[in-house]
């Protein structure tokens, strides 16, 4: 109940904000009868309507994960974001090994296996991508070797 209501409320606000920003779209002098504003506003209106239905007639709650699992998920997201930022400056091998290792640990808490998975995946995928598929990846940060 509550989850659908909250999601409906959030999406209602997003939809209204979307419509509001659609009214700010610049139109050019070469306008067609519909123009660039109408379709986004239509989409926003349908979304707002569906959100209202969600708020008024919510489905039963799904089973959300409990405390520790949330922490795991949050760690996974943070690691992935850090990985996204570090892929370019730090090269492929080191960030991949760390990120894959942490993810593996989140899936199954065995430190040794997770570390091995991280290193193995990092080296294996690098060989596969760099030499078999010919993608241009850098193993290490530029200037190390």
């Amino acid at each position, binding site marked *: 109940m509550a989850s659908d209501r909250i999601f409906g409320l959030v999406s209602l606000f997003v939809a209204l904000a979307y419509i509001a*920003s659609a009214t700010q779209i610049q139109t050019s002098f070469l306008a067609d009868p*519909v123009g660039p504003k109408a*379709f986004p506003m239509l989409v926003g209106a349908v979304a707002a309507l569906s959100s209202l239905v*969600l708020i008024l007639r919510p489905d039963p709650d799904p089973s959300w994960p409990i405390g520790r699992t949330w922490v795991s998920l949050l760690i*996974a*997201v943070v690691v992935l974001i850090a990985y996204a930022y570090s892929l370019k400056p730090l090269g492929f091998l080191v960030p991949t090994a760390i990120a894959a290792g942490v993810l593996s640990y989140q899936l199954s808490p065995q430190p040794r296996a997770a570390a091995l998975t991280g290193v193995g995946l990092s080296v294996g995928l690098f060989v596969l991508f760099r030499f078999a598929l010919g993608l241009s990846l850098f193993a290490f940060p530029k200037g190390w070797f």
Partner: protein
Amino acid sequence: MDIFANLALGFSVALSPYTLMLAVAGCFLGTIIGALPGLGPSNGVAILIPITFTLGLDATQALVLMTAVYYGAMYGGRISSILLNIPGDEPALMTTLDGYPMAKAGRAGDALVLSGVASFVGALLATIGLMLLAPMLARVAYLFGPAEYFALYLLAFCTLGGMASNNQAKAALASCIGLGIAMIGVDNNSGLPRMTGGHLHLMDGIDFLVAIVGLFAIAEVFFFIESHGKGSSIGVKLEKVRIPWRDIRETTPTMIRASGVGFVAGILPGAGASLGSFLAYMTEKSIAGPKGGFGTGVARGIAAPEAGNNSAAGGALVPMLTLGVPGSGTTAVLLALLMTLNITPGPTLFTDRPEVVWGLIASLLIANVVLLLMNVPMVKIFVRILSVPAWILLPGVTMVSFVGIYSLSGSYFDLLLMIGFGALGYVLRKLDIPTVPVILGILLGGNMENALRRAMVLSDGDATFLFSSPIAIGLWIAAVVGFIAPMFLRSVLTKPQAVTD
């Protein structure tokens, strides 16, 4: 005979050694992808698209590889359904109903071979149907103007939302999320930015591949973290594999009927393979009656959903190729592939680039034979791959996704977007909001708006032009019915629950 001349053209493209090798590799990869729990046809194909793109394959080769993966994943989905009682993808759910009980009764090998043959029959008949029907539909599609296309896109959203979700409002909301995202970027008509918030990275819009990989692959990783990678151990031992000739002979009529049902379900825009296997199973169940023993591990209960599932996979290619409207999540992903390769699906594809279409059809036939040959004797190898633990598999999937998306543009911004879509996909799926309409919205949003605006230019702003032709009116009616009817049919169409131990 046009068809044979075209087929000859197709085989001349598809039988070159390199293309043939790609088809075999695609089949192998696809079966593995389908078999691994948590990797289905849609996310499997999705993470491979960016990589195929950077490999520098030409359009036909890339298409051959990816459709081989697509068909292969449809075959592979049955392996984990039968042995683990875990459907590798959504359409394989119906196969668990009789496959798992049969495997528990010690006939795992029989069930695997039988389902492989049923998959072959379904896919073969569907490919033949595709050959016959697609050129005809392509001719009809020439009559489609912008008003008809607008109604057609609407129909796709309505039926997909109606069928795929348990709640119409949620499906509509999902479509709107997709359409709303598609609006981001520079407006095609006026050349002015929309919804970018002044952000430079958003000026050329959000790449649908980023959204697809995020919503399908990354969200799956979050789901596995939530369940801590449970449910990836072998459930049933596989003994000797023999070919159960008697079962195959007895289920032949079932396979043919199920293929027909599945093909029709696959053609409906927005319905797809899940509906195909569901309807095929339910039809056979009602034909067999209560004495048929469906749900206890009978041969027909395995043959029907597998034939229906693979047949629907072929049928879904018909609207995708002729109209550019995908019939399922996976064909939406294949449409994304075509768009990436700069091929515009639609009626002109058949006249302008026959080598692509017929090369694709020929390679489907080849892939099908390869898959049958691969799946019956080599089933043990695929079963062994199933025992790869989730804590190796899922990090691997994540890293492949990252490298694929990174190789598209080399910008960290796309990677961040992908993680965002992953989180969004997790929340949406938790709330039982379907993610396929989101993808469809991002893919088709631009076309849908263009169709509407072009129609309005033609009629000088007269909205009744949208309902001015019989085809358009028919599509509007179908769209409304497709959206509303499932509300009343829900009690009839409830999916049977998976068998539990």
